[in-house]
């Protein structure tokens, strides 16, 4: 058990994820550690772009496991998420085996006898051969375990949520024709949600609930440092300070971590050594995605830069 699960402590989780370039806060590390220890899925909520999906990727990379991703959308159903019968193959096989069936059943004198003989074949056409495994079933069949990412669960229908309950609590699914398929090795399940709609209590009950908000300034600096190594320390401090000021505004879409990283890359690309009014104004569209937001933020740029630089001096 111990060798397949190298999660000795919360610190080990933190450093393991950091090695993959994912700087986790204490709470995230605790969640990951607990999910390993008590074998529970994690439901991650938070605004877009704070690294919910990245967390699953980082865990998979760190543990050296395969990541299976199920992107949810409206109308997603059993056939696309769990399993499907290979109808075409079934049809093809019945055609090919037609003669063979005739041979086998040739000896039968009556219809009843033929039927009896047919029963002895068993359910050849509804066996594992003809099942097309979809992400959820695939995840259960991985012999070495895997990270199952069920992305944006809030986009799917309420019915799909109920379908997930069995797999989340017992790591098994029931296929009517085949019976219950249990996980070979329990997968690490990560569900993400943007809180577009409230999830059911039944689903929430089965998960550890982790809310990732915008990171604190220090943490965000470390994240930018690990993702954009070429950026100088003063610029990093300034830009993160600036983004924190922007987040205090009342905007339609606040810039999140992914936007911060993009912006840092842009600034490095433009070879900026420190923030000034001109460069911020030109690159503000990297941070803010709505015209109205940009308009609201533009008059504040100078004062925000001043504040951000001052912060840098004292810390």
């Amino acid at each position, binding site marked *: 058990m111990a060798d397949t699960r190298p999660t000795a402590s919360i610190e080990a989780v933190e450093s393991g994820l950091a090695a993959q370039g994912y700087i986790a806060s204490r*709470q995230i590390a*605790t969640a990951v550690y*607990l999910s390993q220890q008590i074998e*529970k899925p994690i439901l991650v909520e938070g605004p877009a772009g704070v690294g919910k999906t990245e967390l699953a990727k980082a865990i998979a990379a760190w543990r050296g496991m395969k990541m299976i991703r199920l992107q949810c959308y409206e109308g997603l159903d059993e056939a696309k998420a769990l399993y499907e019968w290979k109808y075409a193959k079934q049809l093809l096989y019945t055609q090919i085996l037609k003669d063979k069936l005739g041979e086998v059943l040739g000896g039968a004198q009556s219809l009843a006898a033929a039927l009896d003989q047919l029963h002895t074949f068993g359910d050849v056409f509804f066996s594992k051969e003809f099942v097309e495994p979809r992400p959820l079933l695939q995840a259960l069949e991985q012999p070495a375990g895997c990270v199952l990412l069920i992305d944006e669960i809030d986009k799917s229908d309420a019915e799909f949520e109920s379908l997930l309950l069995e797999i989340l609590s017992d790591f098994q699914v029931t296929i009517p024709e085949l019976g219950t398929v249990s996980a070979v090795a329990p997968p690490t399940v990560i569900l993400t949600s943007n809180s577009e709609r409230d999830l059911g*209590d039944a689903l*929430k009950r089965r998960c550890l*609930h982790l*809310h990732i908000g915008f990171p604190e300034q220090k943490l965000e600096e470390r994240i930018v440092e690990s993702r954009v190594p070429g950026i100088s320390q003063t610029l990093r401090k300034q830009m993160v300070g600036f983004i924190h000021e922007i987040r205090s505004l009342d905007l339609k879409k606040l810039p999140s971590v992914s936007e911060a990283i993009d912006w840092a890359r842009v600034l490095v690309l433009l070879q900026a050594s420190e923030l000034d009014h001109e460069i911020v104004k030109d690159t503000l569209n990297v941070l803010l995605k709505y015209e109205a937001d940009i308009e609201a933020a533009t008059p504040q740029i100078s004062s925000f830069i001043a504040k951000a630089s001052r912060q840098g001096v004292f810390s």
Partner: protein
Amino acid sequence: MRENLHRFFRAARGAGVRVSPAESIDAMRAVAQVGFNDRDILRNTFLLTLAKTQDEKRALGECFDLFFSQPEPQQENAEQNKTDDNSASGANPSADEHGDNAGGAANENVGPLAQMLLSQDRSAISTAIANASGAASLPDIRYFTQRGIFQTRILDAMGIQRLRDDIDEQTTRNPALAERLQEALNGLRGTVRDAVSQALLLYGREEAENLRNEILRNAPLARIEPRQVEQMRALIRQIARRLRERYSKPRKRQRRGHLDVRRTLRRNAAWGGVPFLTAWKRKHRDRPKIVALCDVSGSVARVSDFFLLLIHSLHEVVDDVRSFAFSGHLIEVSDILESKSPEEAMKEIMSKVGFGSSDYGNSFADFEDNWMSAITPQTTVIVLGDARSNNLDPRADILRRIGERSKRLVWLNPEGRMVWGFGDSEMPRYATFCTVVRQCATAQQLERAVSDIVATYQ
């Protein structure tokens, strides 16, 4: 420790966090993994396993801080307590020494509680209080009226009787000691009172809130006291949230039994039209469309506050809501309600059309002239008002046309049925053109009325 965890779960429930037995089991398993050493990790663990929304996380965090700021009856302390008792009754040298330092009096004569108080051993006292609280089942406290009885019970369990006897006895023999004991007793009472108040805060909140909400729900909106307005707003917001949870589920539902031939053929084209997969016809439902007309005139000013709040929340539940406010004339307020917070929106609406004397006829005429096209055969029209038109022309003919154009016309009146039609009330005349007329004076009636309206679209 398990006992403490259970007490914490109860406190969490008191703080409004729904902790199911399954979740408490998970939390226990999780705590067994992380241990109690690091308080931050413990806090994170509880937040992860018990709280399932942002609000719950905040409430649970506060509850955690409050809970663990009080002394816990720990095992070692309890044992220490026992040895204290032993030493007190056995009067071994160390206890004597202790007593000599503190009072310089013969302490063999006073009880264990007096001993403890005289030695000024804070941790022992707080442990004793915690143990006595356990004995008095303090976590059962629900209402603030129970504070007195729990204080008495705890003090009794700590042996206050013996202490009083001691004081009586010492007043004659050693007045100085008696005085010190009396002072210590007063201090002790204060500490116990604080402990009980804290417990009430921890365990009693939910019950107290339920009781208060129950009273508020049935209180007439027009006669809410100013200090209750904030609570009432919170209650209306709760109602709105419940409505949203209940009715924001997708309306798509399959109607089994009627085969959709066209879609079935198309879906099965891959295997030569042999129908492996069937497609069924879906039932189409009307999307809710609501037009709300809210009276904000002086006569209903107190109630209209809550009406507006509810309309504001309707905007969140239903996509297609257009709302209008009127007293002397009528304006559209959809944009204000959609873009601003409830408080700001209400202030702005009130400053624009509020507090005038109402003129239903004129307001209906305004509506017909400018916005009649907003009403389609799928629309439900809600009118919130007392129908008191200051003896001006009621223009019931416009209301009739509104009723004919719409799917339903609902009138919610804050006044009781008894007074409809008396004075300048035009309710009977309007009522003939309405699909439903309801009295709507309390939060509960308001919730039912709105819930019925939204439910017709489900």
